[in-house]
């Protein structure tokens, strides 16, 4: 069993009356890229801040690199890289100034050549102040700052928010390049399922503060399937197959989204329910995510009425 880098036990956080994170038990092994996926306001940022000790949990605890996150020692924090949400840096500092400032905190770890290469690659002017940079450039600077000290654990809070495809690709490359070094872990939250599918090993889905999925990407994609059955005569009203996320009825057919049921079970149920024929459709990650986190009474926003 590889070493657990990040572990939370029944982590709960209430903002006043509203519940942000509800009894989250999470374990992330070392050496993987973990995608934090969830709808807006599902508690991703709160969870990340709780892990980093920036927020005080209402109940439960979380451990980062073996040290309790409410009492993170400076040595542990030095081994963790954190990209804030929206790449918030000091606006009045120039890039050179920011680098000099950051380097002071990682005396031996800081990789000057690496940072210089990245800045030169992104062709960012060293003298320019952060407030004159565009969003993308600021993101690039914060990526360079996060990767330069070669952190053991990199936590990124929605790094690719509002960035164009090219910069997003650079972020993914940065993450992959980091993961290749020995014993590194990346935890990043994102909304773009394409990136998550491309890069992450494990996927963690949070829905309304509750941890709904914490498995490898492959397991997640294999588990969620959609079965489409067409019936000659009447459509059975009750569906007793287990693992049904949603089911939609049309006058002749039945559309089921299933989680974790394998093909024989579907076939056998289809025969028992007297379906004329059925076939199983493999969904892409985005649809899987939408179906998985959709509430029970999920329906399209605009229904097509038959005139």
């Amino acid at each position: 069993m590889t070493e657990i880098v990040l572990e939370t036990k029944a982590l709960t956080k209430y903002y006043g009356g509203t519940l942000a994170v509800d009894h989250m038990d999470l374990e992330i092994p070392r050496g993987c890229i973990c995608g934090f996926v969830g709808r807006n306001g599902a508690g991703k940022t709160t969870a990340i801040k709780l892990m980093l000790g920036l927020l005080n949990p209402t109940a439960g605890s979380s451990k980062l690199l073996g040290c309790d996150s409410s009492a993170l020692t400076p040595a542990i924090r030095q081994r963790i890289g954190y990209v804030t949400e929206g790449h918030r840096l000091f606006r009045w500092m120039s890039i050179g100034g920011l680098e000099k400032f950051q380097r002071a905190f990682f005396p031996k770890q800081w990789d000057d050549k690496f940072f210089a290469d990245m800045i030169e690659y992104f062709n960012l002017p060293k003298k320019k102040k952060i407030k004159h940079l565009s969003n993308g450039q600021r993101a690039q600077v914060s990526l360079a700052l996060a990767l330069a000290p070669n952190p053991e654990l990199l936590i990124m809070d929605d790094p690719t928010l509002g960035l164009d495809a090219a910069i997003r690709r650079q972020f993914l490359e940065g993450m992959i390049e980091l993961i290749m070094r020995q014993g590194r872990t990346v935890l990043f939250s994102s909304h773009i399922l394409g990136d998550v599918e491309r890069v992450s090993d494990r996927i963690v889905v949070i829905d309304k503060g509750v941890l709904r999925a914490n498995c490898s990407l492959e397991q997640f994609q294999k588990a969620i399937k959609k079965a489409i059955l067409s019936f000659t005569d009447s459509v059975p009203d009750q569906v007793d197959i287990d693992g049904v996320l949603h089911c939609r009825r049309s006058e002749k057919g039945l559309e089921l989204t299933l989680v974790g049921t394998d093909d024989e079970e579907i076939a056998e149920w289809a025969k028992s329910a007297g379906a004329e024929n059925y076939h199983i459709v493999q969904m892409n990650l985005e649809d899987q995510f939408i179906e998985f986190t959709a509430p029970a009474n999920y329906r399209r926003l605009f229904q097509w009425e038959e005139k």
Partner: protein
Amino acid sequence: MPLWIQILPGSDEPIYIQVTEQISKAIARGELSSGDKLPAVRKLALELVINPNTVARAYSRLEKAGLVTTKTGSGTFVADPKLRKTDATDINMLTERMDTLITRGLNLGIEAQDLIRLFESRLTKFNNKSNERKEEK
């Protein structure tokens, strides 16, 4: 070695399956003859900007399918055709693909005969290409 792999993240097929298919198609088409060296896991990962584990998993599926063999330390090579093992799952995956092809053809209103003639012509094209490869070597 003009191996070109096109990844489509949003598609319904997981990435590692796409990688495996494209490599096997390249082998089938003869771009990768047996004995060639596939690119290293890290190099391919960096190039396609996907997770090295996915590439590694794709390579292990290919190895399971017998298309490639990995020699520890020196990388993975295309295996020669004799060694390829065919098992039932591959066969019925093939038949299923053929069914989709046929249904698509019938939907277009092509007669069965024309379909067979079309199929044979495509097959001959594949054959002479693999023959040319043989003469070059």
